[in-house]
Structure formats: C-alpha cells, structure tokens
C-alpha cells in the first residue's frame, strides 16, 4: 500500500469527529469520554484521525509541505487504534489506523524523521533491540533459570521475552515468572536468550516499515531453524507483531499471549490458585493485546459497488474493529485468584485509553506520553483500586514512571505477578 491508495478514504471520511471520543454508547462521564490522546492533548483537529486524513490529503495534493508541525502531527500518533474502533461503530469502508500508519511510512520514506526515532533504529540495527542495550546481554534475565536455549537445544514452545522484559530490570521478573510457571506446568518451553531479537512492532508503529520487514524476516528464519511451532510472549507489542503483522509476511506459527496460555491452564484444571491475594485491582487493556489483538484474516480482494453506490469488497473484507480482541483471558485470571476484587475503569476493552507509550511517543514526546499515562492513572484511581494491572511491559513501564513522577499512590502489576502471588 501507499498513501495515495487511501485517497478515496480521505474523501469519504465524513469529518464527524467520532474518532475523538470513545463509542458514544459507552460514555459514562464527561471526565473519561475522550479516546484519542493526541487530539486531547494538542487540541487541533489535525491531531485526530479526521485531521490526519485531511493533512494526508493536503500533502498528497501538494497543498502543503512537510514542516515541523506536520512531523509532530504525524509522529504524535501512538497508533493506539482507539480512533479506528470509534470510527467503525458506523463505518465499514474506512481504515483510519491503516491510513495513519501509511502516513507514518510515507514520512519516514521522505526522511521526515525524528532524531529520537533514528537513535532507536540505530540501536535496533546494531544491537537488535530498541533500548540501546548490548545484544550480548539480552538473555541475562534468564541466567540461573533451568530453561532450554534454542536453537542449540530443542523445545516445543518458544517463550519470547521481547526488548522491554529482557532489559528492564524492574520488569524482568515477569519473564522469569512466565518461564517458571510454564515449566512448573510441565510445558516444554525454551528461549532464544542472546539470540532473541526485537519483534520490530514498535518501529513499525513509528513508520519504519523496511526495518520491521527486515526483523520480521530475521525472526521467522530463526524460528524456522529452531523448529518453532508456537511462540508465547508476555509482551502485548510482540504479541501483536507476531499475531497480526507477521502472517502477511508468511509466518504460520501459533502465537499466544501468556494470559491466553494461563487461562487455558485454568480452564483445563491444571492451574489452581492456593493463596489469597487480598487486593482491589483494575485492569488496563493494552492496545496491542485488546483492540489490536484480533487474529489476522488473509484477504486479497477489491472494492466494488452494489445498489449503485454502496461500497463493499469482493470477497468480503475482514473487519478489524476491536470486537474480538483479547479482553476476557486476563479478567478471567484475575477473577479466579482468591481475594482479588476486579473493578473496572470507564474506558475498557475495545475503547480503552492508551498508556501513552506507543508509536514512538514515549521516546520522542516524553511530556505528552507522561500526560497520557497520568490520565489513565487518574481513571484507575477513580475506581478505588489499589493496583493497576496490565499485560504489557511497555504499559507498565509508562505507568510506573508516571506514578513515580507524580506520587500518584497506585501499585502497578503484571497479571503474572498476581498469578505468582496466588500460587
């Protein structure tokens, strides 16, 4: 695809501004009614999906040129996809998230990039991670763990830690817990250790399509060499990359998030919680596990019209609107832990508010990113919960940093941490 392929959508966007709000049916208050962090923070239309359609059209038609403002408009999009969900409450023939991604790709191709993102790409190319850490230390989190190291050793299931869980010392325990839990359940699991590489998902969301394709290709080759059939991860970003972005490039491995795996174990009666965890918690749906966590459906079709001017597709086009994301497994796990009381925030599931870490915003626009996290923390606190639980290390990192900066007085946990407490 190229930006010009979205020219029809640019004309067909009806500028209704639904993209700025959670689905109206779900609104419970004035305070937590907005869905798009960038237009909520910067306010100009251009920072919303409808505005980005207009900006893209303006650039395509050469009515405006690249500028610092244009770069900011495009790169402040977290590609969280909340706009996409709200748009598709009514529309079947617009893909605002895909368009914004394409707009990002076009800016990167035109070298309209940000220094902070370029630094990440340099780290990715050199160290195979986006955290500026040595690749030789990628597997250090698993030192001392009795776990197979692929490809020299064999295992049925690969646990992919991802950049954040591999290197972030506050969060590495999630990866350790995951592997220990899998092993304790008799799962034949292995890791790639220092041979693991970034999934590429985060640079994809920054607009670096070529780099993503390169790393997807590398990962798929490593998996093929190691005979990997199933990949399990505790990172929502990696999950989304493997589940949604790799299949069009040829990947056929089964992809599971740890919450899906654990829920399966609970349902099979293999995992029982024995310890009480007396805690009121609220759950944050990561964008890439929730609304963007829907399974990939292959489609190769064309637009056609019926009834004169109704736009449909031949064959029927798969609809990604957040309906079938991974929402219930983490909730079912939390509800099955003795003592845990789950209370919901106002914006949940497909219309969840983003943590603020996506699309390269955390790296390039730290104030905006922190504000976005603080908004979510305020929403979590409004529930009366003691802890904010999630299933993505990027979300958790952003929340922890915000709480530490603001003293918000809320604990942050991964679902796995509570599972471990309850065993």
């Amino acid at each position, binding site marked *: 695809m190229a930006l010009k392929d979205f020219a029809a959508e640019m004309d067909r966007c009806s500028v209704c*501004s639904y993209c700025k709000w959670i689905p109206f*049916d779900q609104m419970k208050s004035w305070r937590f009614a907005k869905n798009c962090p960038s237009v909520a923070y910067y306010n100009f239309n251009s920072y919303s999906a409808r505005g980005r359609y207009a900006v893209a059209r303006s650039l395509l038609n050469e009515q405006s040129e690249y*500028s610092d403002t244009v770069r900011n408009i495009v790169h402040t999009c977290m590609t969280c996809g909340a706009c996409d969900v709200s748009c598709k409450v009514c529309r*079947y023939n617009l893909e605002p998230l895909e368009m914004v991604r394409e707009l990002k790709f076009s800016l990167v191709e035109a070298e309209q990039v940000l220094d902070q993102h370029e630094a990440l790409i340099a780290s990715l190319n050199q160290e195979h991670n986006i955290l500026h850490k040595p690749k030789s230390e990628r597997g250090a989190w698993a030192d001392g763990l009795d776990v197979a190291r692929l490809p020299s050793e064999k295992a049925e299931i690969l646990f992919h830690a991802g950049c954040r869980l591999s290197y972030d010392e506050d969060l590495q325990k999630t990866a350790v817990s995951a592997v220990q839990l899998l092993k304790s359940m008799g799962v034949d699991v292995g890791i790639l250790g220092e041979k693991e590489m970034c999934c590429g998902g985060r640079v994809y969301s920054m607009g670096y399509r070529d780099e993503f394709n390169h790393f997807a290709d590398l990962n798929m080759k490593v998996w093929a060499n190691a005979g990997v059939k199933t990949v399990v991860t505790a990172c929502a970003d990696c999950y989304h990359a493997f589940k949604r972005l790799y299949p069009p490039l040829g990947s056929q491995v089964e992809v599971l998030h740890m919450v899906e795996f654990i829920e399966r174990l609970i349902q099979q009666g293999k995992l029982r919680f024995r310890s009480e965890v007396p805690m009121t918690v609220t759950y944050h749906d990561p964008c890439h596990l929730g609304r963007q966590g829907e399974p990939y459906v292959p489609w190769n079709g064309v637009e056609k019209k019926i*009834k004169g*001017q109704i736009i449909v597709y031949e064959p029927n086009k798969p609809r990604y609107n957040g309906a079938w994301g991974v929402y219930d497994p983490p909730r079912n796990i939390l509800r099955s832990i003795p003592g845990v009381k789950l209370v919901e925030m106002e914006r949940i599931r497909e219309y969840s508010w983003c943590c603020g870490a996506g699309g390269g915003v955390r790296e390039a626009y730290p104030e905006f990113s922190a504000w976005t996290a603080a908004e979510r923390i305020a929403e979590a606190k409004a529930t009366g919960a003691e802890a904010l639980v999630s299933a993505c290390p990027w979300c958790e990192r952003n929340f922890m940093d915000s709480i530490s900066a603001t003293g918000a007085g809320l604990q942050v946990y991964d679902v796995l941490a509570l599972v471990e407490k309850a065993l």
Partner: protein
Amino acid sequence: MTLPKHVYQAFEDVVGAVNISDDPAVLDSYRYSLAHTAIHLGPFYNTYTPRGAAVLLPGSAKEVQAIVKLCNKYRIKFKASSTFWSAQGYPSEEDTIQLDMRRMDRILELDEKNMFAVVEPGVIGATLQAEAMKVGLNTHIPGSGCSCSVLASATSYFGSGPSNLYGGCYYDNLLGLEWVMPTGEILRTGSVNSTGSWFCGEGPGPSMKGVARGFLGAKGSMGVFTKCAIKLFAWPGPKTLPVEGVIPAYKVSLPETFRAYTLAFPSWKAWADAAHLIWDTGIGYLAHRQFNMFGRDLKFAMVKILTDPTKTLGDLEEVLADPEVQRITKQSERDFQIILVGMTARDIAWQDAALDEILNRTDGWKVEAMNVPEIHDWVLLYLIRLGHKNLNLVFSGGYDGAFGLLGAMDYGAAHAEEAAQFKKTWEKRGAIVDAGGDCMMGPIGGQGGGGTGLWENFTCFDPHDRESVEGTLEFFDACTKLGLEKGWGVGMEKWNSVARGSDGRTTPKAERDRMHLSAPQPSVFRYQHKIREAFNPNDLGDAYYETLEDE
C-alpha cells in the same frame, strides 16, 4: 494570506503559542470538502471551503473577547465552531480567523432542582447526557447526534431531534446565554444577568434570544457564544446506561417501564393520524422515523447487519435475499420508531394502552421483528444516546437531504410518496444509492413537542466518485424544480445555498437578495439586516446570518 507577523503575534499573546497555528497542513484540517456532503447546498466535487488565516483555540470567554476585539481592530473576519461537522461551521471567505472552541468544554453547573445545565461550547450531547443521568435528568439530543455541541445546537442552529416530543428541541430549551458580541462586548441574557443564576432565559426587559440567534440560529456568523444554560428533563432510568453487546451491536436493557416500538401503517394518512393522536394523548419520550434513512428497501436488512457484529455491508445482498427480511421490509414501509418511558408502572401501562388504542384507530401495527430483544435493546440505546448518527454516511461517505422541511405531519399524505417515487426513478440512474426512493427520516414532533414534523429524504452518494457527485447535484436540482412546480417550495437540498455557493464561497449579494425576496417572509431578513448593522457594524461574520437590504 499569511497574517502579518505583528497581527499573528497579537493573537498569540492572547491564547499562547501552543493554541494558534497558521501551518498550511493544520489549516487544511479546518476546511470542509463540499464533495463529501454539503449539508443542503451541493455537493460540489473537489471543492473546499476557503483556507483560514489561522486557527485559534481559546480557553475562556476573556480570550474570545480579546480575539474578537483584535479582529475588529484589524478588520479580520472570524468564525467559531465547536465540533466542525457541517459546512455551516466553516468560513465562506478566505483569510478568516477560525476559532476552535474545543478547549472550552466544561459543564459549569448541573442544577438538579431547577433542571438545567450551564455548558461551554465544547460540551457535546453525550457527555451532558451521561452527567445528567447521574442525577435523574436527561438532555435533548439533536437529530445530528450526540457528537454535536449542545451550545452550538441551541444557539446557532435549529437543534431538532427525536426527543422534541417530550423534552423540546434545543431552541425551546435554551435559557440564558453568554455572548461575545461581534464587537467584543459581552452580553449575558436572561436571569443570569440580574441574579447570577441561569434558571430563566428571558428578561428583565425585551428578549434577546431572537436577536442573538436570528433565523434558525446564528451559525457562527454573529460573534461567539461562550456559555449557555439548557433546560433538562426527567430521566427515570439508571444513573449509567448498562450497555452490553459486542461492538458495534451495543445494546441496553432498561427497566420494565421502557419500550421501543417500531410502528407501521397501511397508508400515509394513517401514519400522520397516528402522529397527531400521539401528540393529543401526550404519550412518548422520543419519536423518530429513524432507520428509514437507510431507505425503504434496505432498512430492515441494515438493522439486521448492525445488530450482528459478525456481519458487514458486504453481507447486504445476502441478507436482502432472505424472504423473512423481505416480508418485514414490506410490512414496515410506512413506519416510525417511538420510545415510551413510564415514570411509574401505572404510567407505562397507561401509555401502552393509549398506544394500542391509537393503533386500533389507525389500523397500525407494531413491527414485531423489531421487538426481539437483541433489536429492541439496540434500538433503545440507539435512540436514547443517538450515538450512531454517522450511519447517515455508512454506505459510501456522502449524504445530503432532499425535499423535506418543517411542517405538519400531513406532508406524508400530501406529497412524501410522490417525492419518494420521483427519487426512485433517479436512483435507477446509478449516481445515488438505490434504496427504495423513500429514505425520509425525521422527528415525529417538531417545536414544542408536537404539531409539526421535520423530514428529509436521505440521498447517499460517493464523494470520491465524480459521476456520483455530479449525478447527485443533478438530482437535487431536479428536486428543487419539482418542488417549485408542485408548490411544495424549495426543499432541504438547497437550504444553505443562500449563504454559500458552488465554489464554497459566499453567494453573490444579488443572488442572496433574489432568494430572500422570494422567501415566504422576507421581512425576517430585513430585520436581521438591521440587527447586523447594530451588533456587527464591521460585518465580520458571513452570510449564514441572512440579511436583506432592499429598502
């Protein structure tokens, strides 16, 4: 034009550097494509409203006042808009200062006892309704849906919608307002001016409501409204809507005192009689001919698709082929939706009985297929929240209303069918969606709860397809011609052509004068001319505030 540096700096000093922009890309996100839907004046392919000189995001009435004073000082036109969803909210002339009011989005007061709210321009129907429900109240939501600004609908347009019937339209519900007049002075109307409380919209002294709003609202052409009070009405439901279901088939199960019926009738006369009887008996909370916007032939199939999250528009032909769908479609040709809400069990029992008697007298019936729980609960949520109004544009992104206007419900018997059949012949030409000719929708109850209805015949087209756009325009011209020949008058399809022309700019004065002189009451526009002279001496608005200067 780029604003001279010192002028830009003067505006920046008011709102701060982060709240002003003249970047061309930003300005282009504040232009309106008149190919997509021109809201009753087009459409015109590949045409945009003029690019503004700068966009400003004021944060207070004080900032708005300072901006307006600067506009007067430098003789720059300005136009404020809250949600930017229709062509009326965009300037008609180049180099206008555009005010995006979204930062002023607070609900300042929610007076449960006196049943009103005081809101800023950025408050939309959905957020006000969500907050009002917490205290047992509800707000009217205009037909354009809950994404629209409450203040803009009340001060600057008609503000009609399904809850006209019980709650009154926004024009009815407007109490006091705070108005930054075109010269930059601030006027507060109604009781707020003398008592500081917003409970009453009028007095002491002559009413300023008509002066401030003008005919059908000021449409952003006469200063900036920065606050208003809006009347609320009773909500006997839960404090939060208990929404269930998989997107987009959200639905709500409400107490036993709530009903959502689709009523259908054997003739247009019976249809109109039922509306009159509903008004006479005083039953009903909301009433709207809603889903017919998809078209007489498509509406039930569309309801089936929208209430099934596994279906898409691509399933339409298959759904239409279902004999049961065809049967229901035929059964509900002349229909409308009504929601009954009982304040008590006895009340809803009485309303139910009254409705049954109305159906008995008019030979009408309830469309039972619309009463199965998954559809009933979806309809209930749809009409109460009115959060799916962008379905107007579901087919291909472009729609506009043809024929129609405000009038007695007897229009149905008088000429709605003839208009529908006329449209049907045009649908077969291919430029517009082939939906069955009758795509008429609108509230069953106009101003003051009853006595009138407002209707328009939805015409859907593809704004990216030149042939579709031009074919639609040709159809609209034919509608106007037919309306004049038949004595129905000019329909909605040309409603705003008096203000903005096919190039997106202000209609030439001679043309405007011609249209105003041929209007039923030209003196309205003469009166508005005098008001404009008095209140907007530098003429810094646009022609959406309609004036006639012929004496």
